[in-house]
């Protein structure tokens, strides 16, 4: 291997790593606030690309129906609970809150013509996926918020399985590749950087920086951090952990959507491609011990780079290498963080 090849691989790795960084950041966020290892995030990434691709082809994406059904389910759960508590205010509040979702659905159904600009299609796709993130929280995780991380992990895997099966049903088995950032390649330090690569890196940096600012400087963000540090304590000082969970799932949905928009043009995505993508983001998150954002980002970049080089040397074993790489990291993390023992009950 000469330097040129190495540089190309490195660039490839960094671009993939930037996407994994986004995923890893969102995973750390969700885990630290709700203790859910959000495996289905990867599925949301694939769904975003599939949604955008349907818009590009001038069709109505199946995502609309997924969101509509999930919203109906979540709303009925919410109504049953409100009725049981005889809490009329809550019923009104949830109707209002869920009112956002039909609006997005109608938007997606009627206001995205084939001729619409790419940006508009991207925005509507992202909005749909973000709604889905919030709905998953309401239906699956909110009712079991107090369970152990292990039980939540099993639930997350079940959710992944469910999304996978809906994905095949709604999108079919064909793969898609979406339009990317157009523009001529740039020359940077003697390397040729495609505009796609530059776009991915820039977007990833912007989103991660925005998240950082949100958590560091806004009251809502700080309340989330408080809920992450100590659930009981946060509840005592009046921070709703349910609202905190909802917020992070919305953010995670958004991060997944952005990743999907970024990764769509570089790789052919199928309904089931998301899982492996999500896992790679997850390896990065694990390097950061599911808690430290900069370490998680570094881990994600490392995963991207290892993957790029592994696919050069032994392309068939690319994924095996990445996943076997996790085990020592998991071991180191498990031994150094002293997580509490938790059984199934």
């Amino acid at each position: 291997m000469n330097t040129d090849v190495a540089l190309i691989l490195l660039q490839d790795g960094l671009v993939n790593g930037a996407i994994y960084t986004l995923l890893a950041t969102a995973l750390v966020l969700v885990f630290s606030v709700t203790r859910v290892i959000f495996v289905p995030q990867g599925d949301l990434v694939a769904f975003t690309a599939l949604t955008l691709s349907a818009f590009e082809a001038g069709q109505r994406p199946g995502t609309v129906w997924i969101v509509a059904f999930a919203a109906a389910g979540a709303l009925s759960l919410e109504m049953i609970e409100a009725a049981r508590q005889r809490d009329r205010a809550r019923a009104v509040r949830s109707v209002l809150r869920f009112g956002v979702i039909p609006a997005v659905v109608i938007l997606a159904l009627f206001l995205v013509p084939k001729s619409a600009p790419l940006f508009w299609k991207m925005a509507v796709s992202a909005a749909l996926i973000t709604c889905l993130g919030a709905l998953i929280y309401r239906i699956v995780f909110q009712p079991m918020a107090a369970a152990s991380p292990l039980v939540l992990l099993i639930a997350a895997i079940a959710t992944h399985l469910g999304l996978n099966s809906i994905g095949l049903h709604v999108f079919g088995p064909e793969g898609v590749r979406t339009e990317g950032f157009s523009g001529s390649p740039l020359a940077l330090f003697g390397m040729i950087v495609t505009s796609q690569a530059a776009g991915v890196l820039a977007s990833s940096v912007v989103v991660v920086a925005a998240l950082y600012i949100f958590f560091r400087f806004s009251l809502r963000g700080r309340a989330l951090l408080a809920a992450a540090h100590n659930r009981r304590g946060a509840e005592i000082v009046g921070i709703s952990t349910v609202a905190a969970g909802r917020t992070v799932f919305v953010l995670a949905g958004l991060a997944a959507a952005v990743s999907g928009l970024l990764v769509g043009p570089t790789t052919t995505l199928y309904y089931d491609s998301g899982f492996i993508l999500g896992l790679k983001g997850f390896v990065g998150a694990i390097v950061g011990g599911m808690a430290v954002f900069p370490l998680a980002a570094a881990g994600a970049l490392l995963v991207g780079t290892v993957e790029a080089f592994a696919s050069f040397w032994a392309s068939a074993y690319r994924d095996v290498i990445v996943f076997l790489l996790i085990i020592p990291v998991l071991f180191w993390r498990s031994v150094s963080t002293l997580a509490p023992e938790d059984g199934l009950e």
Partner: protein
Amino acid sequence: MTRALVRFAPSIALALAALSPLVLPTYQVAVVTYVMIAAVACLGLVLMTGIAGMVSFGHAAFVGLGAYVSGYLSSQLGWPAWIGLACAVIAAALAAGLIGAITVRMSGHYLALATLCFGISFYFLVGNSEMLGRFNGLTGIAPVSVAGFELRSERQTYYLVLVMLVLVIAWCRQLLSSRTGRVLRSLRSGPVIAETFGANAHHYRLMAFVLAAVIGAVAGWLYAHVQRFLSPTPFGLTASIDYLFMTVIGGSGQIWGALLGAGLVTIIKHELQDVLKFVFGPTTRLELLVFAAIMIVVLQKARRGLWPFLEQRFATAIAPVAGIEPAILPRRRAKPAHGLTVLSASRLRRSFGGLLAVDGISFDVKGGEILGILGPNGAGKSTLFNLISGALSRSKGELSFLGSPSSKASARDMCRRGLSRTFQHAALVQDMTVLENVAIGATHLGRCGLFASSLRLDRVEERQLLGWSMHLLDRVGLADKAFELAGNLSLGHQRLVEIARALAADPVLLLLDEPAAGLRTNEKAVLADLLAELRAEGLAIVLVEHDMDFVFSLADRLMVMNFGRRIAVGRPEEVRADTGVQEAYLGVAA
């Protein structure tokens, strides 16, 4: 009626299973065969996940390993299937031993994720291996032959699988009711119980991991020689998730849960698939959505699975009949002479970050003496207990037990040397009987391990250990509750069970952490009598207790702690008169 029905249920089920191929159509026979193979695989998961508390998302990899080892030997080298079985089991045990050596040290979700990683890796490794036929698969696997007769048809393989299933169930039941099994069953609530009573929790976790892999490999072997064609797909992540779901839905804590789960999941899936394919076209996999939904509801509403629901209805009917005679162990540890120093601690210190929980405590306990430790909440009493019993390592200080120094903290080691304890928050295995819980205390007194109990060579020892446990339950006054589940006892009675369990280890020093909390007045009197008796037998007892009357009437000497320091030590009346104690503890006005 129900009692008889429940008692003979296994035999009835077996008879039905044996006769059903004679009446069922071939297709159904094949379906049931696959249900039974899945049930074998799930039994492995019951051991690992339900019993030992380690969740695996990579179980199908071990099933696949067993299948591919035997499949390869059969199709490429022409080896007979039975030798393939031996090789499959050995390969799985070796692989699990290696992987487990790293992974079982991890806890909770870390371990689950590690299993997920090797599960996925196995799929890709096999799929890319030329030798194993890549994703196209491996063909030409010979059927199993018994005494020269080849089992080829659906009905013949059905009986092969049924026999193996029954053997594996019998073996699991045998194992779980043995000394080894009791320790395994304690692991789900953490390593503390095992370590406190002299068992190496890590060793047992590894054992559960390897056993799960071996049972999985047996299931894989069956699959390979029934299907006689292998591809990587049935051993991928989806299959691992399926096995886990079957186990959790059925009830991961019980052997019968695996059968129930495997049966329900496979059969409903089959039927559902047919209906959904008819409605939505041949490529649909919406049945997975239904399963995901069922799984999520089970996790939200009934985390213990469906079997406990069934069991609850018959719970009274299946209470085992008593057949265990109280007995005293034939060889017991010699009690120290009265007045001999059993434990001496000097300048013990332990800090947690900036907090000095125990600060330079020195004391000793003699044989035939009860030392009471008093102190307000947060005085460092429980930390002191943990330092003495080896559950925590000390930052500084010396500790010697029966004259020999104990340099490194190890609860396991201290138990074997004759120290035994109870916990402030009763730590019993809730879904084991009271008698079995007590028998965990006697773990280090037994010798029979995995192999002896698999072959039922442990009967004499079991009778001794259980008899000894019965004797101790009798002493604490709970013999009539021996066969109830520990979780059904009142908190006060759970503490008494803990005392019986601690005594089962045949200690010379007993540490009791608030034994009288939650007891009624007459029960306290019984407990005080018991402790006085034990003292007369020569046991050294250290007692932490908030009930003043109880401590002052019972203890020979008292030590008072506050903020991690010793503020007084002496005979009860001296301590009562001590002004420092009155100020710090009983209040200035006292």
